[in-house]
């Protein structure tokens, strides 16, 4: 026992002396040893963390899922609220524009109405409004938005009315070209395009010219904006020029309109000569 203790001490002393003497040359061995130890430490540590998470995570997962469900419900509620607010803002904007229009045109009385449908037939361009004879609406009353002319009331029941749009193939509106000052006829078509008819060859028409209702025929009040000239087709062989018109109103997105309630359309058909 004493012999072996002595051997160990002697080994340690010799090893120590050698280590001190060869200290500069042992760096490689030392770093290799350290690297191996660090690697082992990392491996043990990572395994420990995994085991620890395995033990503790289920409880956190349940909590997180509950919290996530709460937040998702909150998010859905807020998103629905945002959509609702956006709709209200859009409706308020539309109503504000209509109010501005009615204020800037105080010569007429208006009733606001919502578009609740369209004609079931694709061959007609009619819309259905939620105002009827109970609200004072009568056949022939013009319908406008803040942008311009929409059409006129064609049929009325107590709580609703049907409006013939100016794009309807059966619609004809007497209009006046702003620059040329000439009067002509605006007609609709099956496709919903607007065209000018009976436009004399000597009339100067340019792209972008604005059209207003002329008031002729008594069907519409004068000076309602209708649209602007999109292109002109003039051929010497034709009796009249042709022009396609871009309406100022987007008929596909109509939601709220104004009915001019104090306009009395004039029925001139008894004055027309019968063949």
């Amino acid at each position, binding site marked *: 026992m004493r012999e072996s203790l002595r051997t160990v001490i002697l080994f340690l002393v010799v090893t120590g002396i050698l280590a001190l003497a060869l200290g500069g040359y042992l760096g490689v061995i030392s770093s290799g040893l350290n690297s191996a130890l660090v690697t082992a430490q990392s491996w043990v540590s990572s395994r420990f963390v995994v085991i620890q998470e395995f033990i503790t995570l289920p409880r956190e997962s349940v909590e997180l899922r509950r919290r996530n469900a709460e937040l998702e419900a909150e998010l859905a509620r807020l998103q629905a609220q945002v959509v609702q607010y956006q709709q209200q803002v859009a409706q308020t904007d539309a109503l504000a524009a209509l109010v501005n229009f009615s204020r800037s045109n105080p010569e007429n009385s208006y009733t606001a109405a919502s578009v609740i*449908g369209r004609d*079931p*037939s*694709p061959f*007609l361009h009619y819309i259905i409004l939620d105002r009827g004879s109970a609200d004072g609406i009568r056949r022939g009353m013009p319908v406008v938005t803040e942008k311009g002319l929409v059409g006129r009331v064609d049929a009325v029941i107590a709580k609703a009315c049907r409006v013939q749009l100016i794009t309807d*193939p059966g619609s004809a509106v007497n209009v006046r070209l702003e620059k040329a000052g000439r009067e002509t006829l605006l007609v609709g078509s*099956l496709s919903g395009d607007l065209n000018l008819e009976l436009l004399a060859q000597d009339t100067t028409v340019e792209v972008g010219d604005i059209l207003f209702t002329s008031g002729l025929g008594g069907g519409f009040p004068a000076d309602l904006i209708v649209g602007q000239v999109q292109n002109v087709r003039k051929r010497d062989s034709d009796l009249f020029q042709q022009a396609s018109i871009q309406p100022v109103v987007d008929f*596909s997105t109509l939601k709220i309109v104004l009915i001019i309630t104090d306009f009395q359309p004039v029925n001139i058909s008894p004055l027309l000569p019968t063949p």
Partner: protein
Amino acid sequence: MKTLVAFPALALAFVLQMAVVARIPLLAGHANLPMLVVAAWALQEQTPDSWLWAALAGLMGAFTSGLPFLTYPLMYLLLVLFARFLLGQVWQVPLLAVFVVTLAGTLLETVFSLLALQFFSGQSLSWGDALAVITLPQLFLNALLVFPVYSAMRDLAQALYPLEEFV
């Protein structure tokens, strides 16, 4: 009594037509849901009241649309006549018959609408334009819609007038 189902079913079809379907155009055409409902009902073997459905749908169409009054009633009655005739010619209604009736209904609507507008409203309309911008897109949309409508009508007919199943 079972015939009374026609009122809510067709009223719903017209409400959907005016509020939704008519706002989904392809070019200038859109599907005709009431026409598909009437056609699909007429193609059910066990339904005895398809004529009444056609008449009722025609009256509803005449009331809601700006087309001359008799256009929709005549159109739907003629469509049911064609569908019942086709039903009598084939043993079971194949998918092709559904398409044929849809095609016939779409063409009938075009012909009746244009004739009515020309003769009763005095409008001169181009048949070529009507075919290009309304009828063909409408035919496509009707063909898309006819399967769910036919399926719903078949279920409704089976619920109201159950057929005996052969085992």
